[in-house]
């Protein structure tokens, strides 16, 4: 056999050629497989990525809707400011990335060049503020406070300022009409965060990078309506950001306006009077602590009794919401959130909670009646009540003999309620409770809507607390360890309490129950809860969800969606209990604990009902509560560390009523002066062009109704007088 095969090659070469061929075709198959994987299997993913790659959006922000008062007066609207902005895509086309242009711009705007350059650079993890965190295709605002002069310079020398625009732009404004600042109710805006952006991406109202988002108050609750829809123009761009494709255009839709039930005039009165009351209280001596009252915070709510609509809501301390416009400065933010400022961002009407004191007695009275005690029965009202050696004083330190529940409400006799609560406590088994307890006093509180939100259309309302058995048990479990550690049998007051709590903190003790019956102890309520309750007593028992928003008027004025009053419960009145309580509360204003504040009140024309409250807070001065209502309005005011109910809050509340009804100090009505003798029912008039009529508004002049002077009595309550 020849060494060389016929094909001219050896077996070895032949095999190797086949190996090469197999290798080659497996490489090609690999490519084909990979191509299939990328294009067919995962094609959609890459298609989406390609889309993101080459489509860029330019956003025309929608003008945010206004927040109006009940008559159309703007509480929050927009003002036109001259905003100078720089287009990054234009600047980047220049040789020096636009440095020269920006430097020239800084000169015109009286700013430092560095400052302007920093504002235009893009944010990333390494770049500190200031920097632009929006889309690089969006014009970047350099300042929103350009003068007309500066804007003209920029426009006239357009060739010196390529990529720079100076245009009037809508910027949020809180005009505080008639000094009605309404800060906490309105809320504020701040730029959208990355997290919100991704979260809202696939919802029906996605955010845009440039969006401002309502952070609290109405701005937050009605954010979606107010925001409108931004206009988006989509451009196809190449890798350098140059526009190569056609634009797709969605027009901007301006945000809807929110008409509220707030009356700016009444709001101004409420704010002024609350502040006034607190300032006066700060001049008064507190006989318990021998210091002047601190009156550190306060709130007042004016509510329509038949709808639950809020006519005004004020909270102190307050702030200027305009501080948030155009981005809040670090210093302002620290001031607004610092402890020193006592948290002015809190809306204390819905977020402040305190023990209610005697204004709670309407709950206890109803509870007693429902538990089977005759409203008109005779109940002893001694000056003190003792349980197992512990003495519970009648805070007025006065005995009235045997009185009815109505009279007990009028004179705010604590011992009547002590007795009833103690009896009920016994009936429920005392310290060793029965399996099924009635808990009339606690059950009724829940029925009055306490311990849960009223459902007002403002964010972050707090619930308050009903210290019932369930709560006690939970609270005990959470705190047992601390109490047992701290408690000493014969230590300080705090240590003794802790010792006691450690032993039987989970039990409902007699002391807890009697204290609770007069609104002291662990009970917490918010002003809005009490206003809702007193409004319900006035309207026959319906607990309305308080509302601030009254109607949503679309940006073009074409559609109006009214926000109807909604109820969330009925007060558990049986028979004529409501009427009797109503009568007793009228008695409070005419001959009871608040009578001295309503001298000269035209009770026959405008029946006034009131209840005073002074809540004890351990380690602090007393909280002043004043809950009132007429046929149409319910006003609740509270001042923390402010003294007694009628003492600190009485005159202020009466002045608000005076303003509403047009009364002078002597009780003479002048309807011309009355701001709102009847609740505003009609919505403000909407013009065919979509604008809303707004009446002119005069600031509140407190001198128009002289302060109520009642001869022979000091402003902050007679000595020893407690509600």
């Amino acid at each position: 056999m020849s060494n060389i095969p016929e094909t001219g090659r050896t077996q070895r070469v032949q095999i190797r050629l086949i190996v090469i061929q197999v290798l080659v075709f497996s490489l090609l198959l690999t490519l084909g497989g990979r191509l299939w994987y990328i294009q067919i299997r995962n094609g959609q993913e890459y298609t989406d990525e390609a889309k993101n790659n080459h489509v860029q959006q330019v956003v025309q922000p929608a003008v945010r809707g206004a927040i109006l008062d009940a008559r159309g007066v703007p509480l929050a609207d927009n003002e036109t400011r001259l905003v100078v902005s720089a287009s990054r895509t234009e600047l980047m086309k220049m040789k020096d990335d636009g440095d020269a242009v920006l430097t020239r711009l800084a000169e015109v705007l009286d700013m430092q060049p560095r400052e302007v350059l920093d504002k235009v650079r893009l944010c990333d993890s390494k770049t500190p503020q200031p920097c632009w965190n929006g889309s690089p295709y969006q014009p970047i605002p350099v300042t929103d406070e350009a003068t007309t002069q500066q804007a003209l310079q920029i426009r006239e020398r357009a060739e010196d300022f390529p990529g720079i625009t100076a245009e009037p732009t809508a910027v949020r404004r809180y005009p505080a009409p008639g000094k009605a600042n309404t800060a906490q109710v309105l809320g504020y805006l701040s730029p959208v965060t990355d997290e919100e952006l991704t979260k809202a991406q696939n919802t029906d109202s996605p955010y845009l990078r440039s969006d401002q988002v309502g952070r609290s108050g109405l701005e937050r609750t009605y954010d979606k309506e107010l925001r409108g829809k931004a206009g988006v123009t989509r451009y196809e761009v190449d890798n350098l950001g140059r526009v190569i494709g056609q634009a797709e255009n969605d027009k901007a839709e301006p945000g809807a306006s929110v008409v509220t039930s707030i009356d700016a005039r009444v709001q101004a009165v409420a704010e002024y009077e609350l502040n006034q009351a607190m300032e006066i209280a700060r001049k008064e001596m507190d006989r318990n602590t021998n210091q002047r009252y601190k009156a550190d915070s306060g709130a007042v709510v004016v509510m329509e009794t038949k709808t639950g609509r809020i006519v005004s809501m004020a909270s102190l301390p307050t702030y200027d919401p305009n501080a948030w416009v155009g981005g809040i400065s670090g210093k302002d933010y620290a001031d607004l959130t610092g402890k020193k400022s006592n948290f002015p961002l809190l809306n204390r009407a819905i977020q402040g909670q305190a023990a209610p004191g005697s204004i709670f007695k309407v709950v206890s009275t109803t509870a007693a009646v429902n538990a089977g005690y005759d409203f008109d029965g005779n109940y002893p009202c001694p000056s003190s009540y003792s349980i197992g050696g512990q003495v519970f004083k009648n805070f007025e330190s006065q005995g009235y003999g045997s009185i009815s529940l109505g009279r007990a409400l009028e004179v705010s006799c604590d011992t009547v309620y002590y007795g009833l609560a103690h009896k009920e406590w016994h009936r429920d088994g005392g310290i060793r409770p029965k399996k099924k307890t009635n808990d009339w006093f606690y059950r009724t509180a829940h029925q009055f809507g306490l311990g849960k939100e009223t459902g007002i259309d403002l964010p972050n309302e707090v619930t308050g607390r009903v210290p019932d058995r369930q709560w006690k048990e939970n609270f005990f479990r959470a705190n047992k360890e601390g109490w047992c550690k701290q408690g000493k049998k014969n230590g300080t007051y705090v240590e003794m309490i802790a010792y006691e709590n450690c032993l039987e903190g989970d039990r409902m003790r007699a002391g807890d129950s009697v204290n609770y019956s007069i609104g002291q102890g662990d009970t917490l309520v918010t002003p809005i809860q009490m206003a809702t309750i007193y409004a319900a007593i006035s309207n026959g028992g319906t607990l309305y969800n308080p509302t601030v928003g009254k109607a949503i008027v679309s940006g073009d004025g074409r559609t109006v969606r009214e926000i109807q009053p909604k109820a969330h419960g009925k007060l558990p009145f049986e028979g004529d209990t409501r009427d009797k309580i109503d009568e007793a509360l009228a008695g409070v204003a005419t001959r009871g604990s608040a009578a001295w504040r309503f001298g000269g009140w035209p009770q026959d024309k405008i029946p006034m009902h009131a209840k005073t409250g002074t809540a004890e807070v351990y380690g602090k001065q007393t909280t002043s509560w004043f809950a009132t209502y007429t046929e149409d309005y319910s006003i609740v005011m509270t001042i923390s560390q402010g003294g007694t109910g009628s003492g600190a809050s009485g005159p202020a509340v009466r002045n608000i009523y005076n303003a509403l009804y047009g009364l002078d100090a002597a009780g003479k009505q002048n309807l011309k002066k009355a701001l709102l003798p009847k609740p505003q029912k009609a919505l403000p008039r909407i013009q065919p062009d979509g604008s809303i009529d707004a009446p002119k508004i005069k600031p509140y002049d407190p001198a128009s109704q002289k302060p109520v002077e009642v001869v022979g009595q000091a402003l902050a309550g007679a000595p020893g007088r407690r509600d």
Partner: protein
Amino acid sequence: MAGFSVSRYAPEQSSWARLTARDSVVRRLDWPLLSSSLALSLIGSLLVWSATRNRDTLTHGDPYYFLFRHILNTGIGVALMIGTIWLGHRTLRGAVPVLYGLSVLLVLAVLTPIGATVNGAHAWIIIGGGFSLQPSEFTKITIILGMAMLLAARVDAGDQLHPDHWTVAKSLGLAIVPIAVVMLMPDLGSVMVMAVIVLGVLLASGASNRWVFGLLGAGTVGAVSVWQLGLLDDYQIARFAAFANPALDPAGVGYNTNQARIAVGSGGLTGTGLFKGSQTTGQFVPEQQTDFVFTVAGEELGFLGAGLVIFLLGVVLWRACRIARETTELYGTIVAAGIIAWFAFQSFENIGMTLGIMPVAGLPLPFVSYGGSSMFAVWVAIGLLQSIRVQRPITA
């Protein structure tokens, strides 16, 4: 007898009859090979056109500039192929020492000041008038021819069954010189292709297994030591890093691979249609007319179009394999195998990097990528394959 060609011995026939005669060169050409190569070049011209018609900085405002240049390059390439067939690979065998010497001189010239750097690789000679030369493309051919000449000489003469160790060593020495020079440029992509060519040539030559595995081992050790000794430039290391993790730096090194994959992936089954790919129109893929030309096929022609490109490359390689197997002399076999190794690896590397299964290396896709040197070299290689086929005896 060198230069033997049947057709040249029929002077009495008319030229048309000569060309169409049953045993003519034209009849014996490998037509599937030729038509696939032509089809690839023409598809390439469309893709190059699409990739460049908006790139004003490259085209100087003439959107057809690259289309015409690519067609022109293809024409020159076809002419070079015809010339190569006419000369015949056996004729060229005699000229190999000269050609080899010339190509080594050219790659050396790149290292002198007349060389130019393009995309980090100092691999070009600018001729002027918009022309430039990448000598390493031609070196691929001369390495194949030179090694084939040495390895096949004694076997084809019938003296040996397989090349002996000394011959293999000599042929490796012949390859090492230009490879070393190209490495100095540094043009790592070409070095990789040349190394694979050497491997393919050795395999086909029938050199002992020890050489084949020894070379593989040496290649591995070499690659590791190059990495360890830090002989690579930063940009080369970055390319490998980006291959390992494209998400690493999407704006920097990973940008190319990322954008390339987006372009290919967004094509789907049928693609966006020629000129309608947003990635291509928007110029998101750098070097799209040369190294990343496959992404245009992927995006605008879809799985069907890009698959067709791979299929046509497959036809070329299939025909080349047939030619390698059917020729009777080892010289032709080795040359064909070298070309197969070259085309196969370069295509796999080029397409593989756009699909993210190979690291980025600056290599053109045969026939399809824009670039004269590559186009000419590839067509000369086709000429060599045709010549091997034409000159084998009709009956084996």
